[in-house]
């Protein structure tokens, strides 16, 4: 906690109103992002990770609503802000890039125009100046022969290049925070790495903070400083990336780590999936959302929602996990699973 947080999300709760009832997509999520850090948010599809970020920027679909909680950006409340005020922040101080660069760019406008309109919307500059800035950005994200590419349409770019265009577009106004929603998921594996390294490189060069949303723990391990593990619309575990990978404090995180195939292992091993499927967010369980799939679930886990327990001897970064096994009353035999992280990974 060396500096004041850039973004402070507190008890954020988002519902989608549907004909079948309210889908409780995000249920009381709290976290903060410090200036210049990379926060990785992991979770499987439907865990609420993307919706959390869309809620912060007020980009929910018409039937989505932030019903409780707040998001505070540099002391300014984002939740409940008028669309006009939010517009001034979107694309300026907080920018966002999306999963599929194939569909996230407008097919009928040149990429140059899509950059220029963003610059002109936020800065008092002429179109000529905006074009110069767009060219600089293309060079910054390493698009080859940038000058001639500005007048191309999205379909004239490859997937990786389109994602570079998206990144350039997000950087138009030197954002303090970049939200990257699964930026590498739709790309080839070789391109994924290039884009990740580009993001990491840009983050160091420009000093912005990044929220990196992904379901790929490998991506997090590569670039993130801190990690937020989400499940069933809630934060399950949060902490420094090394702490969480070395000694996960939640059975769900352990499960996620165990399901990564180990290419260095010479033994023929089957993948270890987590059995079961995520909860129905129309009627989420009263207790821990992971309890029905958890190998260590106790009666209490099904009945009551566990709070976040802080790991006592963690480093400066807080390491918390939402699991009843950390309660003093939990049986020592079960607590043991967290005490020997190396063994758990073996």
């Amino acid at each position, binding site marked *: 906690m060396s500096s004041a947080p850039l973004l402070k999300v507190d008890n954020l709760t988002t519902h989608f109103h549907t004909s079948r009832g309210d889908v409780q997509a995000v249920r009381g999520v709290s976290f903060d992002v410090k200036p210049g850090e990379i926060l990785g948010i992991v979770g499987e599809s439907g865990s609420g990770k993307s919706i959390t970020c869309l809620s912060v920027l007020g980009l929910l679909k018409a039937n989505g609503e932030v019903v409780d909680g707040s998001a505070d950006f540099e002391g300014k409340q984002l939740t409940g802000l008028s669309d006009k005020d939010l517009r001034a922040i979107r*694309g300026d101080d907080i920018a966002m890039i*999306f999963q599929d660069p194939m*569909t*996230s760019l407008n097919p009928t406008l040149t990429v140059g125009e899509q950059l220029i309109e963003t610059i002109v919307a936020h800065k008092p500059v002429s179109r000529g100046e905006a074009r110069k800035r767009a060219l600089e950005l293309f060079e910054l994200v390493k698009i080859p022969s940038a000058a001639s590419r500005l007048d191309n349409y999205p379909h004239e770019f490859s997937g990786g290049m389109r994602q570079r265009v998206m990144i350039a577009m997000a950087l138009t106004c030197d954002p303090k925070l970049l939200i990257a929603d699964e930026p590498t998921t739709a790309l080839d594996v070789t391109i994924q790495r290039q884009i990740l390294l580009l993001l990491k490189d840009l983050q160091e060069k420009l000093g912005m903070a990044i929220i990196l949303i992904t379901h790929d723990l490998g991506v997090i391990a590569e670039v993130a400083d801190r990690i937020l593990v989400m499940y069933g619309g809630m934060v399950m575990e949060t902490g420094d990336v090394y702490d969480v990978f070395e000694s996960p404090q939640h059975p769900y995180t352990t499960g996620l780590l165990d399901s990564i195939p180990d290419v260095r292992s010479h033994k023929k091993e089957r993948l270890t999936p987590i059995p079961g499927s995520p909860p129905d967010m129309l009627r989420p369980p009263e207790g821990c959302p992971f309890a029905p799939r958890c190998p260590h679930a106790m009666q209490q886990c099904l009945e009551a929602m566990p709070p976040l327990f802080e790991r006592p001897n963690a480093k400066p970064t807080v390491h918390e996990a939402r699991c009843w096994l950390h309660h003093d009353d939990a049986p020592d035999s079960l607590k043991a699973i967290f005490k020997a992280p190396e063994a758990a990974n073996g």
Partner: protein
Amino acid sequence: MMALTLFLIITLTFFLMHAIPGGPFTSEKMLAPEIEAALNAKYGLDKPIWQQYLSYLQGILTFDLGPSFKYPGVRVNDLIREGLPVTAQTGFLAMLCVVALGIPLGIVAALNQNKWQDTTIMAVATMGVAIPSYVLATIALYLFALQWNLVPTFGLDDWRGYILPVAALSGFWLSFIARLSRSSLLEVLGQDYMVTARAKGLHPQTILFKHGMRNALIPIVTVLGPVVANLLTGSFVIEQIFALPGIGRHFVLSISNRDYTTIMGITIFYAAFLMLMILIVDLLYMVLDPRIKLAEKS
């Protein structure tokens, strides 16, 4: 390509038309056989059909559509020239209604999806698509012209005369375009690039028109070409009902009269017009959608 299409249309129509029993000078009033033979000889109808076909083609090449068989001394070119202003005027006004009302109504419905504006517009539009224009025209004529005397029953003497024909003519396509605009825009609104546009902090109007409508217009423009042609052909019936002196009325009459040259002339005119409209749409398409390029360019 277009010339070939036109040639095929001419050929098909020519032989199909001649396949219909009877001829221009067959009627209930039996003409004396000598007179009928003389008339046939005058218009070349006594020659073998392939000769008639060749001489007709020859005429087409010089833009001569031949003499009308039913109106002595009148040439088909003149029939079209006289009727076109009326047909074009009503057609243009109807087209204006379709575009200037249909698209905005579709936008309003899409932006208020499932609210009262949407349900109302769509209910009316569904009726507009379902009810044939001649039924609408007849009912409107009865109510507004006969019962309430608000508009004249026939003719285009002042602006009030245009109201019913234009409304009847545009009703179907106006409803059709409103429905199409709504569904097209709704689809575009759900696209990822619309979220991107919002995430960039653009003004809602910029997002709607520059990003939304530009993409939503592509399927609408596809339909508009044939719509223009359809408004003109749709006027066949409407011109008949409102007794307007347009081309459409001549066309309907010419078929029952077996007025060969008039049938041919108007068919060719409409075919050429439709092709021109499709060409314009294709060109517009390229402006709207950069993914579509002329074959030679790529």
